[in-house]
């Protein structure tokens, strides 16, 4: 399988070209005379070449959102623009998609949680299906299908039937099929939720590779924080049909009190005694290639305890949060804190009450768990 070096979290600035834009998207279902609001005014901006993750619990509206992006579901109000084309304007009235919408869809790849491969066709036949829809000639279809199979690392499975493949292999076929129409955009509907952790990792790696090699923009929905952490440049948190927060992973980390950043990089731990200063140090990508903690200890000759940390090192850069404890009150630590800030790190002092409250919360959770 061709691999694209080490995955790299690119620092995307906020003004990249938007490839997927939804504005004021709402979706209301009629269910036994009752109205259920699945989407409640969603504005989403996915920039070209990024991997964008929408995370939320089941029922948050993620699934409706991704289905509205290629209009498998008609939004009740609002617009969807993909690669400069206003899809909602092509929607037509009925359930049936018109020619223009179908053409637009053929340029948007989609992969599914349950793969949705035809058991009646071979692996190669499955990948050729979208090409048949596009009217590609037989020889060209075969060439393209084999090339895609090679890209997803399954060149030896062309003649196999989906029933003979493992879950991870099926998803690779699903991805190859989604790429058949040379899409600019790939929609991934919980593509790894039916897979075991190891297979999940390899599929995410594949998505990342494709993103890098083909410049493919990926919009994925998931309920697993790990997926966002592993592959996403940007993320949005959905709750009850709304996007609560969104941004690049760095932006989110830099946002004090960001729920998503807190979940992506959870830190906890309280001061071990009085006269201690607890600070949260946030590493968000651009800065921090230096071993700052040991530098801090050496420069100021202080003992630092690490209370908790949630860090990832990606391409030599540290991303995440660390909660450290410095000896002395905050007033005594103005200089070391200043040093950390000078390194381009975000430093938030954890108030003792905060820490105590966090500890109490944790204890309460432990007690609860114990009671179960």
């Amino acid at each position, binding site marked *: 399988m061709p691999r694209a070096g080490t995955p790299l979290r690119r620092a995307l600035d906020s003004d990249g070209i938007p490839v997927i834009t939804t504005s004021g998207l709402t979706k209301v279902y009629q269910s036994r005379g009752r109205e259920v609001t699945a989407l409640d005014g969603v504005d989403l901006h996915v920039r070209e070449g990024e991997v964008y993750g929408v995370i939320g619990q089941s029922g948050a509206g993620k699934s409706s959102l991704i289905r509205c992006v*290629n209009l*498998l579901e008609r939004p009740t109000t609002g617009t969807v623009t993909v690669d400069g084309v206003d899809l909602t304007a092509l929607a037509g009235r*009925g*359930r*049936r*998609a018109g*020619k223009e919408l*179908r*053409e*637009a*869809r*053929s340029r*948007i*790849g*989609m992969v*599914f949680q*349950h793969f*949705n*491969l*035809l*058991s*009646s*066709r071979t692996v190669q036949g499955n990948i050729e*299906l*979208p090409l*048949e*829809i*596009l009217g590609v000639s037989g020889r060209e279809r075969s060439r393209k299908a084999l090339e895609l199979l090679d890209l997803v690392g399954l060149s030896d499975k062309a003649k196999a*039937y*989906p*029933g*003979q493949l493992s879950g991870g292999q099926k998803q690779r076929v699903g991805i190859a*099929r989604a790429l058949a*129409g040379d899409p600019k955009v790939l*929609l991934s509907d919980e593509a790894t939720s039916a897979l075991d952790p190891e297979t999940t990792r390899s599929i995410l790696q594949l998505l990342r590779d494709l993103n890098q090699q083909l410049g493919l923009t990926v919009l994925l929905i998931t309920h697993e924080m790990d997926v966002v952490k592993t592959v996403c440049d940007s993320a949005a948190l959905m709750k009850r049909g709304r996007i609560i927060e969104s941004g690049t992973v760095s932006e989110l980390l830099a946002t004090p009190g960001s729920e998503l950043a807190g979940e992506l990089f959870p830190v906890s731990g309280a001061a071990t005694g009085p006269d201690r200063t607890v600070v949260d140090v946030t590493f968000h990508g651009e800065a921090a290639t230096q071993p700052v903690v040991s530098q801090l200890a050496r420069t100021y000759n202080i003992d630092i305890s690490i209370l908790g940390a949630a860090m990832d090192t990606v391409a030599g850069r540290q991303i995440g949060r660390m909660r450290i404890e410095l000896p002395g009150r905050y007033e005594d630590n103005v200089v070391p804190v200043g040093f950390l800030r000078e390194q381009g790190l975000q430093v938030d002092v954890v108030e003792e009450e905060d820490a105590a409250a966090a500890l109490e919360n944790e204890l309460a959770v432990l007690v609860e768990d114990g009671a179960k």
Partner: protein
Amino acid sequence: MTWSEMQPLLTQGTYDTLYMVLWSTLATVAGGLPIGILLVLTDTGGLLQNRPLNKVLGVIVNIGRSLPFIILLIALIPVTTAVVGTFIGPTAMIVPLAIGAIPFFARLVETAVREVDHGLVEAVESMGGGVPTLVGKVLLPQALPSLVAAVTTTLITLIGYSAMAGAVGGEGLGSKAITYGFQRFETGFMLATVVVLIAIVTVIQLIGDGVVRLLARRGRTA
């Protein structure tokens, strides 16, 4: 009745029965397949959602399935005469046989097509496929094993119907059994026709099952 007397009757009967059954099965598939697919596509949530059309089709199919075949056979005499020019003989019998079996087959098709995973429909839609692609490349191939089983069941049902057709001027084994076995009290001949019918049904079922197994094996296991 001796065997040499029975033999030509049985041969002719078998030929007529197969003639009626095979042609009417072809007509049934041609008529019932689109109706069955339409029943699925026009249903709520279907790609061609159309409640009125769905209801009308459903009612027609239900009426067709409720009528006892022998009644339908007689009621259709004017139609048969209009189409074939006569209502007597094996060719004429194809009309009521097919009309009687179409609603039955349509329901079997509906069930088979409905069993196709909705995710596949979604996948084809996401690729930009329209209704012809969906039907031709997904619904029919995916439902093929069930459809073959449905054709087998329909063939066998039509053999039963064709025997009834013998009572109202049709030819075939049914007609021979009624004329010779029943009306002339030839118990031996009656038994012989029953044996031939059993043999035909068994062979059809075996072939059908074999094809279904062959199709179903593809894709499932290695």
